[in-house]
């Protein structure tokens, strides 16, 4: 058995060629640049954007805001809009109050149509006293019958009044009562102090 002659050149080690390395660096750099650039553009676009609405269109929001402000108008303390009632209703309509979505959509449309027919202007553009008079008609259900089907005007009024109260007087953690506006208005000591009463164990 003879001795095999040795190859004087070392075997090629598997690795990355210079060309491949340059390609990888180029692709990585381009990726980083694209990531930074795209993020900067998106961040700049959304910066300062108002809180998005989850349910209402801008037109619906304007109409509902004017309606709710009639229910709890602002004076030296915030009214419904400033206290975030619209934020509350908008948030709850895509959550626990989702069953009222149809009522709001149809009711606001009926309100807009009623305002246009009776006064020739969108509800939100009416003068305050005229808005008050129209809200009163909605409450009593004395609106043009052909413009209100389901919900009826009075049913719409009742639900919006309920939700306005909830948003105004409820805890801010549900989306309304911004800055504890209603608690301040009522002079409510909040957070309320509970303390322990040291009940004996047998009284539970």
């Amino acid at each position, binding site marked *: 058995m003879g001795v095999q002659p040795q190859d004087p050149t070392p075997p090629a080690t598997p690795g990355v060629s210079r060309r491949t390395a340059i390609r990888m660096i180029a692709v990585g750099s381009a990726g980083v640049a694209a990531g930074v650039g795209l993020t900067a553009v998106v961040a700049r676009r959304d*910066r300062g954007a108002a809180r998005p609405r989850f349910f209402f269109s801008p037109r619906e929001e304007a109409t509902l805001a004017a309606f709710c402000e009639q229910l709890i108008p602002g004076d030296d303390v915030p009214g419904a809009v400033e206290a975030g009632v619209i934020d509350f209703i908008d948030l709850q309509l895509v959550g626990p109050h989702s069953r009222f979505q149809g009522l709001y959509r149809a009711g606001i449309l009926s309100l807009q149509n009623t305002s246009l027919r009776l006064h020739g202007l969108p509800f939100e553009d009416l003068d305050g006293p005229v808005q008050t008079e129209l809200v009163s008609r909605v409450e009593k259900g004395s609106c043009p019958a052909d413009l209100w089907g389901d919900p009826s005007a009075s049913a719409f009024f009742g639900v919006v009044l309920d939700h306005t109260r909830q948003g105004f007087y409820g805890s801010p953690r549900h989306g309304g009562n911004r800055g504890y506006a209603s608690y301040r208005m009522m002079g409510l000591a909040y957070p309320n102090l509970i303390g322990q009463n*040291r009940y004996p164990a047998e009284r539970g």
Partner: protein
Amino acid sequence: MSPMARRRLLLVGGLYAAGFLVSAAVGSLGYFHFGSPGRTCASCHEMTGAHAAWSGSVHSTLHCRECHGGSLTLDAHALGAHVNRLVRHFTRAPGEVIRLREEDVLRIQQSCRRCHPDTYAKWASSGHASTYARFFLDPAHNRAERMAPDCLRCHGMFFDGNIEDLVSTPSTSGPWALRDPAKAAEPAIPCTACHQVHSASPDGRLAHLYVRREGAHFPLAELPAVPLTSGGAQVRVSADPRQRLCVQCHAPNAFRLAGTGDDRTPVGVHEGLSCLDCHSGHSGSARASCAACHPADSHCGVDVERMDTSFHSKASAHNIHSVSCGDCHGGVRPARR
């Protein structure tokens, strides 16, 4: 092109595409990690309030990542939360309320410690550094009083769950055990229970009360002054706004009777004093506090620190918070010596 060559081309192309996407993600996260908070964190409307508060605070020289951690992280939860938030943002889904988990609160506490080691050491020596085990596994207390969700109002205000998630038997019969044994050694009243890092106080103090129910901090100025009575008379409570914070947890019973429940509002000779007149804010210590007001001797010529009060001995029947001259002088105030 042979099938083999096509496969190879596809594989190489896929690898480059994947590399590009990963690099883009790193670039995007890097932008948030190193960028100015005003151009990054605050671009989400959910963060504008927190950013505005931080901008006006004494901590505005610190970058968000100093306390909240950076975007360039391998923390799966953090990355998942970022992606989830992005998806919600672009799909306009109702945003989750962005709130610190207890784990985050404790991590932030280590940032507090880095910059405020002395204050941290004082807090660590105080009763306010007590652990979950100390508060919730005290047999004497647990036999006397049923655990309730409201315990977490002051003990474990950042706990991510309800009392049933914390203690296995929230009744008076026991046995009591923490569902997660690791919580036993965790502090139940961390720095942020009484401090809002983002807020500026006009007087430079940052004391706020964290109200678990609301998931929000209340500044001292917004905390209500609690009217108290003692023996049918109105108690003169200190006007020190910090007193309003203490009484939120060191609270009287529902009838607002001074000295009931956990209330320690001074009555008797010390009526009108603030807790902070005698107790250090962070250590809670009242040692050597008498000298701040009393000369060597008291009104009646006795060294106040040696008097028979709970300041001198915890066994004393005369609680320092309610002691009056008459306690030792048969109901009569002695003449000045």
